[in-house]
Structures are given as C-alpha cells and as structure tokens.
C-alpha cells in the first residue's frame, strides 16, 4: 500500500516583536530594531539637556563618541498623557532613543497589515502597519518614524548651538588650569 505523499507545508514567516507600553497604550516594535534596552535611571549623568524650538518631545541627548542619540518621549510623540518613562529603547540604525513606560512581553507576529488608507496623517510615518494578536489590534511602530529629517535638522542645529560656547571660548577657560 502506498501512502499519500505528505502535503508540503509552507512555514509561516514570522517576525519577533517586542510589545511595550507608552502612557498605558500598547505598541509593538520589531525586536530587530531594538539595539539596547536601558533603565531611564541609568541616564542620569549620561544625558545632556537639549532644547530645540517647537520640539518638546526631545529634552535630552546621549553622546556616544561622535554620535548623538536624541531621547524621544514616547508619550509626547504620540500625543498621549505625559508620562515620565521608565525604560529606554535605543533604536538600531537611527539616532533615536525612545522613552517608554515598560516592556509588556516578547512575542511573534505572522501578519502585518498595511495601515488602512483612511489613516492619512502623521500616523503613516509612525507605523509600519497593524497586527492582530491575541484578539487585539496593535500598531507596529516604524523605528525611523519618531524623528523626521526636519526634526533631526532642528536638533542638530541645537547641538551646534550647545557646543559653540566651549569651542568659541577665546579665554579657553577649560584649558587654563
């Protein structure tokens, strides 16, 4: 007797994601986009204050060698109730560190649905799409959607301004001692 050949199954392509909360709201991000998770407390001393006109969501910058990471307050970015943020995601291949309430869990998604075209404002930059998970729908954030090119230019200009007094100090007070 010949047995029927087993049906070929195509493995479902899944993506590892991290579910996190910002001001109580749940979001997802690809775990491949998160380079580092840090406690917000660990920033004291490491972060410098920065102020760019009209950009309230970024108050601090982390300097790492010649690289600057702008700390984006997730609640302010999404227009949610202000929250302090207890953890920080350093996002891979971006200049963004995202302040969040905390990580909910790690899981995987098998389907990312494009954001419906009815959503036609800034959210199209914020989200890669939506995913249905455990009878709920979550927005999957775009790691590059937290700071636009214009916002990065504003922040770079603010950084230059911060660095100016030291470099243009003719008295060289820093070297006098």
């Amino acid at each position, binding site marked *: 007797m010949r047995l029927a050949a087993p049906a070929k199954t195509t493995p479902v392509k899944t993506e590892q994601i991290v579910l996190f909360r910002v001001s109580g709201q749940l979001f997802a991000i690809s775990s491949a986009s998160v380079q580092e998770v840090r406690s917000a407390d660990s920033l004291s001393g490491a972060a410098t204050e920065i102020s760019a006109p009209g950009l309230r969501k970024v108050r601090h910058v982390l300097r790492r060698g010649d690289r600057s990471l702008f700390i984006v307050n997730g609640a302010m970015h999404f227009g949610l109730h202000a929250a302090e943020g207890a953890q920080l995601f350093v996002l891979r291949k971006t200049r963004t560190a995202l302040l969040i309430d905390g990580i909910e869990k790690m899981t995987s998604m098998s389907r990312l649905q494009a954001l419906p075209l*009815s959503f036609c404002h800034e959210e199209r930059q*914020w989200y890669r799409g939506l995913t249905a998970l455990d009878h709920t*729908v979550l927005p999957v954030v775009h790691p590059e959607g937290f700071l636009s090119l214009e916002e990065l230019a504003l922040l770079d200009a603010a950084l230059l301004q911060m660095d100016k007094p030291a470099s243009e100090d003719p008295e060289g007070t820093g070297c006098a001692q």
Partner: protein
Amino acid sequence: MTVSTELELQSFVLLRLGERRFAISAKEIAELVAPSRVFRFPHRTPKLEGVILRRGRIVPVCDVSEMLLGKRMTSLRFYLIVVRNYGAHKEWVAIPVTGECELINAEMTAAVESDAPHVAGWLSHDGDVIEVLNIDTLTPGPERALAEAAGRQRPEAQS
C-alpha cells in the same frame, strides 16, 4: 411601470443617524455588522475612532455623525461596512449607525454644484427627501489630507 422607469431604479441602503435617514448606493455596501470592540491607538486623522476586526480584516471606523448632523451621536449601535475607493484600490470602512438598515429601490436625482461635496444625489422615499452619500468624499483619505495641507499652506504663502 414602463421599461424606461424600471431602468432608472437603483438599489440603496437606508441608514439611520439619530432621527435622520441617509442613503448609500447598495453597490458600495459590504455588510451591516453588530457592535464589536473598537481598538484605539494614537493617530491624527479626524473622524477616525479606531479599527474593528472583521473576518480577519482590520477595518477603520469612521464616525460621520458630526459631519452629517452637526453633533456627535453617542448611541450608535451597528457598523455599516462600506467600500471606499482610493483610485483603483478599494478598502472597507466601518460607519457607525443608529439602527438597522433598509434596502430600497429608488430613482436618484443627481447632486448639483451647490450641494455639499458629500452629497452624491437625492432620492424620495416615504415622503422624505433623503441625501445619497458619496463615501469617497465623506471619509478621510490621502487626497483629502493633501487638499487640507494645501489649504493650510495657502494663507502662509500669501503672508
């Protein structure tokens, strides 16, 4: 009824928003569904409440009551799922409505220039004159966002 009159009859779905009735061409209706959980997340598009899950699809919920009635209805009980055209692409949009809907056959009078953009035409039914809605102008989409952005930029350009 003559053959010529028969040819002009079209099917419409009558929906209720508070005390008022509106019509949508039956060709643009996917289904009427019972209330389901609305999933909300941050966004900046006016009129969109969130999304519902329907047959594995994620469907945006667009509350049009404020635009049509001038006030927001809180007692909307069903979702009428309509087909919204984005050029050649079509997507479902759920519109909250007050009560059950009714399918009728009627003759539509086309809208005129002075009608609001969301009016596709008018029909007469049960002694009422009813607005036939144009879903593509009633619900948000990229073309409306572009028009709004252009409108915002115009005064700046003049100054």
